[in-house]
């Protein structure tokens, strides 16, 4: 077990996951958030976020986890992470206000020589400004680092406990020290304080050290590459739909191409959602505009995303099912923007439900909730079966595993109509067709 006590501040999804992952790696953790009701819930293992494996992680390592709303408890930590998720507005622009408020609360508590590591999603340039600000505030003895978070909603626990690499931004690195530590040795660690290097070593993965601006842009670069794969897959999947090809048949061949890779984002979807990818695209556009770069490809990605988000609406519109506003009943499975998460940020399902506000809809999601006031035409159901009952069409808007194993022979006959639109191909297509249902999915 590691004897070092690690501090965490800001207990949104990011802070909750990384504080628990640090405990799992053997560190004692003091996790601070000013919201007393939140820390009380966390202390009892009640999490405001849904992540596979989080409950087990907490159960196994809770003895090393202390949740508190007392910021002074951080004064005992030589390594303090600020890990508050930076939220975005409807235009996908970051709201840094809550982070700055948290920093104002945390930094006065830092011990002499303690290291401050920001994990929150920062725009390029922010770390250096913050570093200068800390120096102005007589915190010269406290080094600031930016550690890139690369969590994925629905797979966050595994990625936090077993990262493929850790990317760090620093103002102490020059060109001679920048690089990758592929062996887990402490070569780049020479630029890191000993307690931070020891912490990183516990994660048994390469560390990539770079200057602040590079690290901040590195996170955005990762997301841009993911979006480019998504947009390319969506574009080609649509071509498949029009010419009689099937994208599912093509994907295995692409995965075997090492230049593309086995884990590439090749599954067609309903545009990008969740908030983080969208935010980074907006940031690239801003940087390009300020610095005179061509970012038209980013605009094309955004347009493709908007276009694909309405794929199901387009299918409904073309089918003629929407002609009868009064009598058409629409069953919806899934509200979250993806499986294994509670998040509905920029969710295609919610966008569709907004567009269908003249129709009677009934929706079910295993985890995600919606504000009934914003969706008066939607009846939220307690079970998938209930959402399918008497519907003219069934829409599978989130690829939850629960839907993949749904007993179609029992559920589908409860519908009034015989149309299933399953963009992600969650249900057994052949079985749906055998049972006499018209079936549509992306990419075919």
């Amino acid at each position, binding site marked *: 077990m590691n004897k070092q006590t690690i501090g965490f501040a800001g207990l949104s999804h990011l802070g909750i996951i990384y504080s628990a992952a640090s405990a799992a790696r053997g560190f004692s953790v003091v996790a601070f958030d000013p919201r007393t009701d939140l820390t009380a819930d966390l202390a009892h293992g009640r999490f405001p976020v849904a992540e596979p494996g989080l409950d087990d992680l907490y159960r196994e390592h809770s003895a090393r986890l202390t949740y508190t709303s007392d910021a002074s408890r951080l004064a005992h930590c030589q390594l303090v992470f600020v890990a508050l998720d930076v939220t975005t507005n409807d235009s996908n622009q970051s709201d840094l206000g809550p982070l700055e408020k948290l920093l104002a609360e945390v930094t006065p508590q830092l011990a002499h020589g303690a290291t401050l590591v920001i994990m929150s999603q920062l725009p390029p340039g922010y770390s250096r400004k913050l570093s200068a600000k800390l120096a102005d505030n007589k915190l010269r003895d406290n080094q600031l680092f930016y550690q890139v978070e690369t969590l994925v909603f629905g797979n966050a626990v595994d990625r936090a406990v077993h990262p493929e690499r850790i990317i760090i931004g620093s103002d102490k690195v020059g060109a001679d020290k920048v690089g990758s530590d592929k062996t887990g040795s402490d070569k780049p660690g020479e630029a890191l304080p000993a307690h931070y290097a020891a912490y990183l070593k516990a994660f048994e993965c390469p560390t990539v050290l770079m200057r602040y601006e590079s690290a901040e842009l590195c996170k955005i670069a990762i997301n841009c590459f993911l979006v480019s794969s998504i947009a390319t897959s969506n574009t080609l999947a649509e071509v498949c739909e029009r010419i009689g090809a099937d994208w599912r048949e093509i994907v295995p061949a692409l995965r075997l191409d090492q230049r593309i890779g086995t884990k590439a984002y090749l599954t067609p979807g309903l545009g990008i959602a969740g908030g983080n990818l969208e935010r980074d695209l907006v940031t690239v556009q801003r940087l390009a505009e300020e610095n005179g770069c061509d970012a038209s490809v980013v605009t094309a990605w955004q347009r493709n995303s908007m276009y694909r988000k309405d794929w199901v609406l387009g299918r409904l*519109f073309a089918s003629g099912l929407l002609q009868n506003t009064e009598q058409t009943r629409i069953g919806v499975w899934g509200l979250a923007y993806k499986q294994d998460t509670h998040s509905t940020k920029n969710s295609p399902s919610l966008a569709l439900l907004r567009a269908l506000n003249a129709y009677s809809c009934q929706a079910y999601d295993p985890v995600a909730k919606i504000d009934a006031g914003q969706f008066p035409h939607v009846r939220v159901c307690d079970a998938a079966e209930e959402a399918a009952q008497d519907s003219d069409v069934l829409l599978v808007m989130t690829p939850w595993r629960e839907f993949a194993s749904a007993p179609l022979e029992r559920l589908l006959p409860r519908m009034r109509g015989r149309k299933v639109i399953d963009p992600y191909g969650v249900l057994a297509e052949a079985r749906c067709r055998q049972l006499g249902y018209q079936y549509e999915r992306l990419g075919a």
Partner: protein
Amino acid sequence: MLQHHRSPHSPLPRTVILGAGGFLSPVLQRNLQAHGATMMALGRSTIDLTKPGASAELAAHIQPDDAVVMAAGLTPDKGKDTATLMANLRMAEAVALALQHSRPAHFLYISSDAVYDARWSSLLNEESACEPSDLYALMHVAREKILGQACQQARIPFAIVRPCAIYGPGDTHNSYGPNRFLRSALNSRTIALFGAGQERRHHVFVDDVAELVRQCIGHASTGVINAVTGHAASFGEVAEMIAALAADNIMIDHLPQSAPVTHRHFDTRALALAFPSLQATELADGLRQSYAALQPASGLAALSSASPASQKPATKKEEAVCP
């Protein structure tokens, strides 16, 4: 993208239609009448919008609660030159002045998909850049701006409908497409295609455009919407469908392809978001109705032998006041 500003359950306002002698007007009148609306359709014989004093005359006809639909204009078959462009702009100027004076409750301009240049996009939508490639397209872009500015200054809710190639019974034009194919099939048993007729277009049935306009009036919609179908058919497919409608053998002639093959595909998302219950008439159904209307017994057969320049709309009335 359209925004709606009125419940569709509200009674329709009185509608003033400019362009009573055009192709769309009679169909729109029938649609509005069927939905219990009152209307006034004004044609050139009542007010010549190109003449001095037209704006004052027009303003006198418009009441504050009216919706006004402008479907008046000289189409390419009446001329593609600068004089036609300037005449069309004078009409827009007159309407803009009348709007500022009379301040109706809603104004809707019937534009055209010609405002888009499909060379820059394989899928056009309402946000595609307006890049006029000829004087006719330039005319619509300029009119949209002229009328939009007038509405903005007078705070009149303003909508633009941009139909793709409209076809249907009573078509007064003879442009390359369904209407010309139908007439030539009836008259000469031939249909002339450029090349293989590969070029794909959204051929929009006139009743569907009228329904879209009525829905825009009913919702007091503002913004831009394309009147499209969701399916782009090639001219070759249209010709084949028309040939299949005729009992006799129809010869399809293939003329030399004089211009590069271009397609115009449209995204229907904005339409689906604005009016999800709208349903486009299937091309085969629309052609069948158009073909039937041109049969001798239909009373529209005269059109089949008329030269394009002398063609008149199905209804001779240029002004109609319906209850």
